[in-house]
């Protein structure tokens, strides 16, 4: 047994030396994204720069915890998250370092950048309202606030409040309506639920298509994905469902940010910055938009027929740190109103 352990330790040591050797031309990513299309971005980056990409995928919170614990020993160069709350949390933990890049500053809008370059947003995902085309008049609803109206009793499908996108949405409502107002809203939505929260966003869309509920809340790209599915049944689901972009007349539809920052102890800092700049390039932005139906952060590269068809949208540019700061309060509100 000692020999087994010994061998393991030696292999482990060798592997770790190989993984972190200083001379290697590489960039180490800790990513909360897990889309196959991202591989295309990494491959294109390696081809263009000769820098190898090493990857660990996981949940944002776990990755943040890991980088924090690894400290100076951390091999992480870049942390990529899929939501604003976790960008904020990572920044609070001090695991980002400031980056000054002409490319990033010129290509990304101010609202999608940390003022000192601790993180950068590269894509946006919108939280929209879905409705049953055959059974519901979309003019009856135009804002998130409407979802809490008693006239929609028993009509809403929405997933569990464990989900970060629901938490971010409520965090934004805490900002706009205060804690009491946000709690009132959450209570109203709970009262209007057609069923207990369950499943993912796609399940909510399917429930609308099947007639289980007239209204649902979910991220926009799940719908776009169904519409582009190879499976005719999926496309049929999407065709039965209409989409409403809430709050267009005022603050805009709630959006979450997919973003990244350079780790404080990045062993390959220059490569990390080059990688971020590459994420802002047309190549990467087109993959975000084309393959994953996200809204690209850089204007003018949008080449996605589905997203294009939605026209110019008014997107809420709420300060990201607000979403992060309000997140714990949002979870407490969900607990109080019994939103599972």
């Amino acid at each position, binding site marked *: *047994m000692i020999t*087994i352990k010994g061998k*393991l*330790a030696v*292999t*482990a040591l060798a*592997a*770790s*030396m190989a*993984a*972190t050797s*200083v001379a290697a031309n590489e960039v180490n990513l800790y990513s909360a994204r*897990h889309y*196959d299309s991202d591989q295309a971005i990494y491959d294109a980056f390696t081809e263009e720069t000769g820098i190898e990409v*090493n*990857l*660990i*995928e*996981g*949940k944002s*919170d*776990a990755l943040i*915890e890991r980088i924090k*614990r*690894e*400290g*100076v*020993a*951390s*091999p992480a160069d870049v942390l990529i998250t899929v939501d604003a709350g976790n960008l904020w*949390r990572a920044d609070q933990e001090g695991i980002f370092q400031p980056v000054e890049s002409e490319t990033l500053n010129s290509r990304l809008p101010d609202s999608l950048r940390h003022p000192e370059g601790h993180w950068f947003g590269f894509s946006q995902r919108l939280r929209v309202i879905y409705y049953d085309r055959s059974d519901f008049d979309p003019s009856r609803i135009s804002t998130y606030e409407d979802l809490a109206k008693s006239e929609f009793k028993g009509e809403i499908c929405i997933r*569990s409040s*464990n989900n970060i996108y629901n*938490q971010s949405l409520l965090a934004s409502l805490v900002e706009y309506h205060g804690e009491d107002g946000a709690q009132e809203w959450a209570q109203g939505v709970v009262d209007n639920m057609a069923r*207990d*929260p*369950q*499943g*993912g*966003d*796609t*399940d909510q869309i*399917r*429930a609308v*298509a*099947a*007639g*289980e509920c007239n209204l649902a809340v979910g991220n926009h790209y*799940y719908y776009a994905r169904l519409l582009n599915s190879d*499976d005719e049944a999926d496309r049929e*689901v999407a065709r039965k469902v209409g989409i409403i972009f809430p709050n267009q007349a005022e603050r805009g539809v709630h959006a979450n940010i997919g973003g990244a920052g350079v780790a404080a102890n990045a*062993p390959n800092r220059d490569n990390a910055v080059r990688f971020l700049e590459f994420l802002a390039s047309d190549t990467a932005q087109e993959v975000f938009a084309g393959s994953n139906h996200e809204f690209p952060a850089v204007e003018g590269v949008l080449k996605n027929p589905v997203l294009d068809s939605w026209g110019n949208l008014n997107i809420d540019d709420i300060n990201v740190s607000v979403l992060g700061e309000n*997140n*714990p309060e949002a*979870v*407490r509100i969900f*607990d*109080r109103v*019994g939103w*599972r």
Partner: protein
Amino acid sequence: MAKHSNHQESVLPAMQPRSSARGLRIRRPSVWAFSTFVIALLVAMPVIVILAHVFFPSGDVWSHLASTVLGRYLSNTVVLSVSVALGTTLIGTACAWLVVMCRFPGKRIFEWALLLPLAVPTYVIAYAYTDFLQYAGPLQSMLREWFGWQGSGDYYFPEVRSLGGASLLITMVLYPYVYLLARASFMEQSVSALDVGRTLGLGPWRMFRRVALPLARPAVIGGVSLVLMETLNEFGAVQFFGVDTFTTGIYRTWFGLGEQVAAAQLAACLLVFVFIVVLLERASRGGKRYHASASYQPLPQYRLGSGSAALAFLACFLPILIGFIFPALILLEMAITTGDPLFGEQFLGFAFNSLMLAAGAALVAVLLAVLLSYSARLNGSPWIRSANRVAAMGYAIPGSVVAVGIMIPLAWLDQRLNLFLRDNYGFLVGLVFSGTAFVLIYAYTVRFLAVSFNTVEASLGKVTPSMDAAARTLGQTAGGALRRVHTPIMRGSLLAAGILVFVDVMKELPATIILRPFNFDTLAVRAYSLASDERLAESATSSLFIVAVGIIPVVILSLAMRNSRPGSRKRSQNG
């Protein structure tokens, strides 16, 4: 340093040779006792690290939890645990008795096929059934079309995403734990006890209830306690079903509320549940001993009449149908019609990683379990026993909490090492302790030692101490007796322990995700990536592979176990 000296002191009482007639004489107590203690400490460390948080103040979050969600966490957890425990005991024990003691059509196939659901992760069975049974799924859509129902108000259909659905599906994939241990126990049972029962005029049913079941009780309870711990830390399925339990509550409190301390305190509450389970197990054994005297002639078998045979067939077939065949078919359908775009060479890489990790962890966990339980047998000191208990706690802790518990000390070591090297020699070596596959094996050992330990301990307990005495009289050392006497007798249970850990590691997800090194994907990670991106149909390919890779060793080892009854070789030579 202070810790170190404490540790030395606490070992001391155990190291003193015992001269009382009660225990066995120990020739080299220090080696066994000391290594037991070190191993137990290493395995318990992550749990201790997490529990250390309990002593930090956690502000007002507890009053918030208590007034809102705590009651629901508690009642859901209790209802889920109790119903799964009852269901798995019933199915597991009944099927094990049927295939060991009765003759009916299909018995030889059922022997191993009853293990198949073990290869299906709970989150996978949840995905598969939900897809099929939900309102928007094929079954209800078809029913609506046939009967012309307009909406959910027109008919009743049980909601799969509910506490009841979760209990049922979890039961269907966890009963093999009870089955496996109960079967091993029935196979190891002594004919003499059954002969005595028979001379006293017991029929098959009463023989089961009065003789075999009491003898197998430690194994059954060992199996059920595994099931309970597995249920307590279950995350994927209950989360997907929207059933809030302590485990989902820990995640939510840690990451949603950002209250790490309160989350650790919730984890400590979960451990109280586990303690209750462990204590119940101990209490149920009472002071009784279950050593069987060594009479390993072939077991008698009951021939069933056609009516009973049909019932026996159904009793064994239904669990396999619900727990394996049906979900596998759903997955297969999804994998064929949609499937994973990466299917091909990369998949072999995922499978290879999964296999290597599972095999490595199974080996380590079984070796350690033998070492720990044998050491406790040699040396009855309460120190050793409680060290073993603590070492086996990791099983009930959610995988990602264990992962964080491992990451904290190992990453700290890495930090120290790198700071030292940087300050003295001006270079960094990176993650020596926490950044390799080694840390995964460590995590799996922490998580799954209880599985191998319970199995091995139950089996070792059935070897009568006179065997030890005889071996030692014949000049064997403690180690020699273990190698030459106990290990051959326990062969079946050791295999069972290995299988269980192997399959558990194949399915393990949260710790793997958090701790894995760069560019290192397993099948479970792949399935999760796609499923969490709501691409269930694409993830079906990996899920199916987990199941497929998992059943190969299950089947092979189960077939091997058939001949594992001591003396069974003689039987096959004669017959």
